[in-house]
Structure formats: C-alpha cells, structure tokens
C-alpha cells in the first residue's frame, strides 16, 4: 500500500490486494489481534439500527498490537472533519493503557477495517466507541495473561500502565506490550458479553483534549483527499449532464471536443464522458460538446413547492399521543395556530464528490470521498456485477460530508469509466454537478395548533409534520393532551420532490425544532411570559432544565416578555441522547432587512465527553453552519430548474456572519457518550426566528429569514 493513498498516519504493511478477511489477518503478521464478531452487542445494534435488519457481516480486526509496540486501530468510520481520528484513538489508548502517540488510525478501508454502516447520525463515538473499548479491554486481558506466564506472577497481581504490564507488589518486575507481542501470533474473537471496562472515574485520557493528530497534515497541504490521489496513466473525466432532472438526451455533437489533443469521448450505456490525462483539458474538451435535451415540463418553484407538498401528503401516521385532544381544546381559552415552512437546503461541502477507480488484477480499487465506504463497496459490486470481495473502497480524508456523501453516484461513474477505458479514472464533480446531484434537506411543512388555559398552561398540542419526518417531532414539554402526526417521512421517494433529498446534518431535527421552538415562543408571547420562564414552567425533565439554566447563567438571560426590542431568543431540544439549550442576540436592520446574530451561548449535555475541545468544535461548527439555513440558505428553482449552482448565489455563512459563540459542556460523566456532531445545529432556526421576533415583534414562520423577508414583514421603508 502506498502512503499517499490513505488517511492513515502510519498505514500497516498490508498488500493493496488483500484478499479475504482471513488472508488479510494473516497479512498483518505477528502480534496480538482482536476481532469482534457480528453478534457483539453494540455492533449488532448499529447494524440493526442502520440497516433495519441486523445484517450479518464478517468479522474483522479492531486493533492490533505489533511487536514494535505500536497499536493500530482499524475502523470503517471515516474522518470528514468531525475529529474521530483523535477521539477514537483516545478511547483505545484509555482502555488499553498505551500512550496516545503510539496509536495509529486506519480508517475507511473496506479491505482493512471492520464492516461499518457508515459515518453519519453522530454515531461513531456512541456505537463504535464501546466496541473499540471492548476490543482494547480484551487485548489488555490477553497481555496480562501473557505477562503472568512471562514474569511468573499471578495475573491478579499485575497491573498495566503506559504499554507495560507490571507486578503491583514489585514494580521492577515488568514487561512491555511490544515484548509480549514479539514472536507471537494471537488472534482473539470476541463474541457476546462485554469484557470488564475501566470505571469512568479512572479515566486519564478520555475527557482530555489532545491536539488533533490530522491537524499538521492539514495545515501543510500533505493531507490527501480523494482528488489528490493519482494513479499511473490516470484519466480525468467530465460527464455529460442533463439540464434538469428527468431530461432526455436527443442530440449530441462531440466532434469539436474530440479534436482537443489527448481527449477522447467514451460511452458506457447512458454514461457519456470526455476523458483526458489532465482535468482542465478534459473540461476544455467538455465545453465543446453540444447537446440537446428534452426536459419534462414543470411549473414547480421554490414558492409553490409547499402547496404541492401539502396537496400530495399521504394520510398522517401517528407518532405520539397522550391524553385527549378534544378535552384539551375544551380547556383552552386561547388557541394559537401556525404553519412553519423550510425550503430545500444544500450540503455544499467545499470538497465536491470525487472518486478514483482503478482495476488492479481482478480487483477494483476505488478511492472515494464518501461517508460510507462499505455502502459504496456494495453499490460498486452491484453496478459492475463483481463479488464484493473483489471491490476495495478506501476513503481518504473527506472534505466535509454533512450527510451528503452517503450516496455513491460518482463512485460508480468512475468505476464504469475505468472499466470502459481500461485505465484508472478520476471523477471530480464540478460545483454545479455537486448542487445538481445533491440530496437536499427536504422542503417541509409543519402545522401546529396549541392552546393555553386561563393560567397560561399549555393544555393541548396538536402537531403535524409533512415530509420532515416524525422522529424528533414529539414535544418533550409537559402537556396533558397532545398528538404528533407525520405525513411522509424525510426520506420521501418518488416524484414528490423535484430533486433528490436525503439526510442533512441533523436529519428531521432542523425543521421540527424550528417549528416546535418557534411555537413555544409564540405561546409564551401570548401568555405575556418570559420565554425561558414559560418553558421551565412546562418542563419536568431534569436534564433539560439543567442545560437551560446553564445557558441562561452564562448568557445572563434577562427575564422578561417578548418582544422586548433587544433581539434575544432561545431554543432547546433533545437529540436522541443529547440535550441542547441555546440563547442568542440578534441585531435586525429594518431598512436593509439584515439580521445579524451577535452572540450565541450554547449549553449541551452529551453524557461523558471523550474530547471536550473536539466536542466544542462540533458545537461551534453546528451553530455556524446552522446560521446558513436560518438566514440565507435555500435552494432556489424555477420551472423545475435549479437556479443555485455555485457559491456566488448560494450563500453559506461567511466570517462577517459570525457571532461570538460560547459553548458549555454540561457535565454528565456517569452517562456513556451520546451524540455530538449534529444536535446543536438543529437549534438554530428557532433561535434566530425567536431573536428576530424579539427584535421586531414579527414572527417569521419560514426559513431562511432573508433580508427580503424581513423587509417585507418588518421593514420600515
């Protein structure tokens, strides 16, 4: 394996043609190797929750202790900026008692790493972490056993520290892990049951914030992303694309393109591309191709899409219910009804979808910017009719994913073109292709009716979400009579949406939290109560109360009813196992319509925190990225045609949009680690909308809250 091909800082000496898993384990050579079987509890749980089937997958190594004492962690997870390259290493280092700098990470390589559902849903630390710790605990038990034999000391008298096993009664009696692994070949397979793990109170590595191990590679330009991978004789491809989804090619003239020296046109069924050894020359030739498409008629645009969604909504299904809505309505003295909308939002990672495909012998090797190397392997095997074991997918560093790099269209395109040209092929989407084939966060609608009684208590809550999904829709507030319904999931398929839609950071949390927390604010305003006071009055959940109080203390939340003119807003949420409360201050210019968030305080309880600084980076990233869908980001389209195909018109947050962000990790060390990469982004829509309400007295029920919308509803001129 060549060093430039992977995101590993010290790749193992295994063949690029590693065969099946059994042979792969042999190629690892000596040392101590720990595998987990698919029936291992957390692995099975993840397989089940990711695929819905508990898919049976082959075992593979989780870690290896080499005779030189270095420890390698193998994980099918990928590094796309979320920082698991360090936090997973910390979990391994902690449980195995080895220095952090002796741990090497091998990530996202389907030949080398254990099967993995994909890197999404803030699951890496929560699900993979425990597997890795179990493997490490098993390895430590093996080492103690070996040391007992070597030192002639009973195992129960031995302790481990800094990659050494020693006699606690006579510390000079000791042996290093590397020495124990020398000349050995020990392979352990963990099945059911969990080896005894260290108590959290003994942690010295988990809970600290060492610097990211990928940072130096990334500041020096040495970190390899998929587009940086080259192979001998590699061709770069540009693929002919339709102008709108569903368009059919009726005419193509490639004569001029073929005259560009070195360029050739290749076809594989409906895939037509120009290939060239240089990417810019491929583009030059591509620009000379003339095409004619027939496009399906469409009168859909970014305004009428919501009516279409509502008109096509299937019968609702019940998500949650409590009490009796009719009774609640009878008790209400005031009812507030509102409809909330959010348009399509793009992932827009700065690295576009890229893949390099090369046939090496009977094996297809594909480097890909993907969040799901094993998913890509499956797609490739199916599309090229190859056995999965003949397909190897390697995910180098990924330049941002946010849920958009799960599908693998570019992966299959590169492989098909490699097969038809007989040469390695790189497909790197242009920015326009990235927007065109993005799986947007779906446009969605939420309708809420809720009532207050004479004492300002919410007596009923009737919630109906269309196409954002019901998973995070039920309210956690203490309301006696409530119902939550959903129509269509967030993964709606078929012809409903004019574009592909899919998971977007915090799937189904962004729209639902925007709606719920906006409506809570509207109720508080109607009650003439401070929005924090009003929420606390409807909360019994101690974790939620704690994060709200933590945020309020740091923010110095001045209690009072909204709108106060000060531009203060808050929002809170539960995201699977993580609790978030955020407070912010907005400045709204009623003349220009500009809304600027000046300050945000965000408190999060995510259970035990493996790397606090890394967790804060994720929270800051969430809040900053969330400014986009709250204030500027909406995919515009007209007659079915996308109008935003680059960053000149699709405005993601820039430096000038940046508020002062303070993050607080609310300690909860007894709870295992929960989600971190997504929860906080889902607070942003309501946080901004509620702050804008406090500033202007106008409630904004549609995201994003653009200057045009502010001027239209709250403008002074």
């Amino acid at each position, binding site marked *: 394996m060549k060093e430039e091909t992977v995101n590993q800082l010290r790749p193992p000496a295994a063949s690029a043609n590693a065969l099946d898993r059994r042979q792969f384990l042999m190629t690892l050579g000596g040392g101590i190797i720990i595998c987990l079987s698919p029936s291992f509890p957390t692995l099975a749980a993840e397989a089940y929750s990711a695929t819905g089937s508990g898919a049976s997958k082959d075992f593979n190594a989780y870690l290896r202790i080499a005779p030189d004492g270095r420890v390698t962690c193998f994980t099918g997870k990928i590094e796309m900026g979320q920082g698991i390259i360090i936090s997973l290493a910390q979990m391994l280092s902690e449980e195995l008692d080895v220095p952090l700098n002796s741990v090497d990470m091998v990530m996202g390589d389907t030949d080398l790493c254990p099967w993995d559902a994909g890197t999404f849903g803030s699951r890496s630390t929560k699900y993979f972490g425990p597997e890795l710790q179990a493997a490490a605990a098993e390895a430590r038990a093996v080492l103690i056993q070996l040391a007992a034999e070597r030192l002639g000391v009973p195992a129960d008298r031995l302790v481990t520290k800094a990659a050494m096993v020693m006699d606690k009664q006579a510390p000079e009696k000791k042996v290093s892990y590397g020495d124990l692994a020398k000349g050995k070949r020990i392979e352990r397979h963990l099945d059911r049951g969990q080896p005894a793990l260290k108590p959290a109170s003994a942690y010295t590595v988990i809970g600290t914030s060492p610097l*990211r191990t990928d*940072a130096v590679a990334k500041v020096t330009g040495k970190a390899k992303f998929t*587009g*940086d991978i080259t192979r001998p004789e590699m061709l770069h491809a540009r693929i002919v694309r339709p102008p709108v989804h569903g368009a059919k090619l009726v005419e193509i003239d490639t004569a001029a393109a073929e005259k560009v020296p070195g360029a050739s046109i290749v076809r594989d069924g409906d895939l037509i591309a120009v290939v060239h050894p240089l*990417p810019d020359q491929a583009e030059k030739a591509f620009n000379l191709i003339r095409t004619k498409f027939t496009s399906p008629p469409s009168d859909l645009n970014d305004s009428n899409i919501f009516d279409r969604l509502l008109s096509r909504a299937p019968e609702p299904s019940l998500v949650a219910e409590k009490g009796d809505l009719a009774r609640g309505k009878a008790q209400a003295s005031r009812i507030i009804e509102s409809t909330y909308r959010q348009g399509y939002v793009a992932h827009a990672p700065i690295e576009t979808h890229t893949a390099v495909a090369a046939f090496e012998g009977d094996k297809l090797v594909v480097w890909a910017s993907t969040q799901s190397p094993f998913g890509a392997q499956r797609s490739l095997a199916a599309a090229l009719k190859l056995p999965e074991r003949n397909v190897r997918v390697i995910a180098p560093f990924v330049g941002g994913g946010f849920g958009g790099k799960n599908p693998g269209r570019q992966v299959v395109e590169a492989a098909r073109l490699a097969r038809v040209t007989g040469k390695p092929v790189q497909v790197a989407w*242009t*920015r326009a292709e990235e927007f065109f084939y993005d799986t947007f966060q779906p446009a969605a609608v939420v309708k809420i009716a809720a009532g207050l009684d004479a004492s300002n208590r919410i007596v009923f809550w009737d919630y109906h979400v269309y196409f954002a999904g019901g998973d995070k829709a039920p309210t956690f507030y203490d309301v006696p009579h409530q119902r939550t319904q959903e129509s269509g999931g967030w993964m709606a398929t078929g012809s409903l949406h004019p574009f592909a839609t899919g998971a977007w950071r915090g799937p189904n949390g962004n729209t639902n939290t925007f709606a719920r927390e906006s409506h809570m604010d509207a109720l508080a305003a109607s009650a003439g109560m401070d929005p924090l006071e009003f929420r606390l009055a409807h909360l019994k959940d101690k974790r939620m109360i704690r994060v709200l109080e933590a945020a309020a203390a740091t923010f110095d939340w001045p209690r009072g009813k909204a709108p106060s003119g000060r531009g203060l807003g808050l929002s809170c949420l539960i995201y699977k196992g993580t609790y978030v409360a955020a407070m912010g201050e907005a400045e709204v210019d009623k003349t220009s319509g500009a809304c600027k968030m000046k300050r945000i305080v965000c408190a999060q309880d995510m259970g035990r925190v493996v790397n606090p600084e890394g967790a804060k980076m994720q929270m*800051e*990233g969430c809040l900053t990225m969330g400014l986009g869908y709250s204030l500027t980001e909406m995919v515009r389209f007209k007659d079915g045609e996308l109008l935003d195909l680059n960053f*000149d018109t699709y405005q993601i947050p820039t430096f000038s949009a940046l508020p002062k962000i303070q993050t607080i990790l609310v300690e909860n060390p007894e709870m295992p680690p929960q989600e971190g990469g997504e929860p906080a982004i889902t607070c942003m829509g309501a946080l901004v909308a509620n702050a804008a309400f406090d500033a202007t007295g106008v409630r904004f029920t549609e995201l994003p809250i653009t200057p045009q919308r502010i001027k239209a509803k709250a403008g002074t001129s």
Partner: protein
Amino acid sequence: MIETIEFKLNHEPTRLAVDTERTLLWVLRTDLGLTGAKYGCGIGVCGACTVLLNGEALRSCQVPVLDAKGKEVLTIEGLARNGQLHPLQQAFVDHGALQCGYCTSGMILNAYSLLLRKPVPTEDEIITGMEDNLCRCGAHQRIVAAIQTAAKQMRG
C-alpha cells in the same frame, strides 16, 4: 500555446514547458504535483485554491499559469521552512482552527497575505480580510483566533 516559463516555486527556481493558457491551479496540481491548493468552486468565489503570487493572495483557478512567469509562487507546501511550521500553521493547529481541512490551505495563505499587508490587524480587519474564503465546517471563530495569535507571534 506551449512555452517554457520560469518562476520561483516555494523558494526554488522552476522551469516548465506548459500550455500557458492553463490555470495555475491545475498546473500546480498536475504537472507540479502540489495538491495543497484545492478545487472548490472553479469561479474564484470559495478561496480553496488560494496561492500567493509575489505575496498577494490569488485564486489560482482564475489565473493563467503565464501570470506566474518571473514571479514568486508560494503554495501551502512552501510555507513551513526547515521542518518548522509557520506561526500561522502552528496557530491553526493549536486553536483547532480546522475540521475537514479542505479549505485550510486557502485560509492560511489568505491570512498570510493579510498579515503581510496588516501586521497588526484588528478583529474587524481579519473578518473583512477573510470574508471571501469559505469554510463549511464552521471553524470561523477559531480561524480568527488563530490569525490573532499568529499575528502576535510574527511581530515577535
């Protein structure tokens, strides 16, 4: 047109026979094997392809390689000297001013050019100076802090 041009690339004299209409970005990434500058948007809007030409930050996806003739080109690969990270690089590491790392080369080089022009920048000047470099991960706050730290260190 193929022409042999000479320029300094990361402090070293370089001679290259190249179609001079090609953009600097793709010549760097292919002929010269320097992949630190990235493609992000292709229209000079995102800044991932930023390199320095005689100390000025430019969008290499918009610059023909001919423009480099007789000048000094600095890419991210040339910023660290003698195995020592540049203070900006070190500050980005120390502040955690990156996540996925894809925009990082452009961020650092744009900041470098900014500090050449304004060795003592105010926070507002940093924000204005960095405004046109896009980061999707949301590392902005830490990038601003890293530039402030590096500016102090570079002044000594």
